[in-house]
């Protein structure tokens, strides 16, 4: 594995990274995670006492070896973990100051505001258009004008409009893998969320499709807060405004993407970036 870090990286980080992110690190913190621990029923503790501030209108990358807890964190933010066998859950996840782990919270509304794109493109077994309007229909929207507007807007934002505008009623499975994944992104955008979570969205895609998704994300961050689990360190380095390195359920290091990949503070981060494990 090659490394994205520059060759003049210092040999070792000087000191232990303060795992508690400093308060009010950002002018505009979108998601504040405080002391979050998540454990599954099979006994593995997937996240241990994570604290992290995720800034608005930036791409924040969560990276590290698999099993480190990145997906768990994503799925906790939009409460998709409710479907899993979570036995212990501590800490808080605040979005715009509201604790989304509050049992009384309206999770449906939360998931509409926090969209998610998965590793494998999962298009629903219906037409391209219906895939895009599905979320709106669930929310009770009935106005065909709204649907039209959402379809065009979301397809343009995910750079898919030119390729499919003349066959919106074709089954979505007829699209190529890369197109399907951009459709999945568009499907999330159709709901006009605040936050977009992406869990290795390009892991199954060819380099060209990957490039299209990444450049869409760069445009989208002007309007959305983006949290991405990349499928490689290279991708992490390419797209990260901010980056967080996860290892065995712990947050090892968090910082500006440009800094972290060039001068990692923690030796474990450095080892990982340089491809010595993981």
């Amino acid at each position: 594995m090659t490394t994205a870090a520059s060759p003049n990286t210092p040999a070792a980080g000087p000191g232990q990274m303060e795992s508690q992110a400093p308060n009010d690190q950002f002018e505009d913190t979108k998601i504040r995670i405080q002391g979050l621990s998540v454990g599954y029923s099979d006994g593995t503790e997937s996240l241990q006492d994570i604290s992290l501030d995720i800034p608005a209108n930036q791409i924040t990358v969560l990276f590290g070896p698999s099993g480190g807890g990145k997906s768990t964190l994503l799925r906790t933010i939009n409460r998709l973990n409710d479907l899993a066998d979570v036995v212990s859950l501590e800490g808080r996840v605040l979005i715009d100051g509201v604790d989304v782990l509050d049992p009384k919270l309206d999770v449906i509304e939360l998931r509409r505001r926090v969209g998610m794109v998965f590793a494998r493109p999962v298009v629903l077994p219906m037409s391209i258009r219906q895939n895009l309007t599905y979320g709106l229909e669930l929310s009770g929207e009935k106005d065909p004008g709204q649907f039209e507007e959402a379809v065009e807007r979301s397809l343009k934002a995910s750079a898919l409009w030119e390729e499919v505008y003349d066959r919106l009623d074709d089954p979505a499975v007829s699209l190529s893998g890369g197109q399907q994944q951009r459709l999945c992104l568009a499907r999330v955008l159709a709901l006009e969320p605040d936050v977009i979570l992406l869990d290795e969205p390009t892991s199954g895609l060819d380099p060209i499709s990957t490039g299209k998704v990444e450049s869409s994300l760069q445009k989208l961050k002007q309007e959305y807060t983006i949290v991405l689990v990349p499928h490689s360190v290279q991708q992490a380095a390419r797209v990260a405004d901010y980056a967080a390195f996860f290892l065995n359920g712990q947050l090892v290091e968090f910082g500006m993407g440009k800094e972290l990949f060039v001068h990692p503070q923690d030796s474990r981060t450095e080892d990982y970036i340089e491809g010595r494990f993981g």
Partner: protein
Amino acid sequence: MDKTLKLGTSSTAKRRVQRLGYGLMTLAALVTVLPIVLIVVHIYSQGLPAISWEFLTAFPSDGMRAGGILPALVGTIWLTIGTAIVSVPLGIGAAVYLAEYAADNRWTRAIRIAIINLAGIPSVVYGLFGLGLFVLFLQFGTSIIAGSLTLAIMTLPVIISTTEEALRAVPNSFRVVSISLGGTQWQTIRRIVLPQALPGMLTGVILGLERAAGETAPILFTVAAFFLPRLPSSIFDSTMALPYHLFVISTQVPGMPVKIQYGTAVVLLSFVLGMNIIATIIRSRARARRQW
């Protein structure tokens, strides 16, 4: 003799055993299947000549030794519809519960054991139960409603297990995506899971109803009438039914013309086979069209 030759001979012996074994298995399969084909061909060849418009639309006459089978045919259709009205929503509901809602705990295991037991209870015991609960205790009398309810409960396990299988075949990623887009669990089930599972569910429902349509023992004491000179006019009337009619004319009526017996058998067999064929077609077409 060198070693290679020895190896050669022993493997010929092995091959002979293998050929014999395979032959026996093939024979067994033929012995199992051939009678089915013969029975079906025999019934059609003997019974088809008896089938006419009049046979299907006339009442039996001359102590059932002449005329048609209209009331039995109509009765079986009513009973099948009645069974479907009760068992389809209930069975699909139970399957949705098991596949989509139920946690893997003691209660769920109890439900599964109950379903396995329902499937194994002898049909005549269902008849007793229907007599005890619906005919006598609830005072429905021997009636279409009592018979349909009895048949419906008997059909339930088939519908539940095939429907659950169809629901579980729908990829879980669809559910996760729908939930992540702000769908509630029921919205996800109604808009994604049920439509995708529909062909499998239909197949199961039809196979379940096929069994109900052909059953005799559960309707003996709950609905079936030996002979009625009119069609049922309400769900509280008793009715004739094809399977029971075939039983009656093949054991209870002396001097019964064989032609009418075979004709009745053909109609019953066509009813059952027709449902079977429809189920098979739905299944294979859905497989060809499936997008996942």
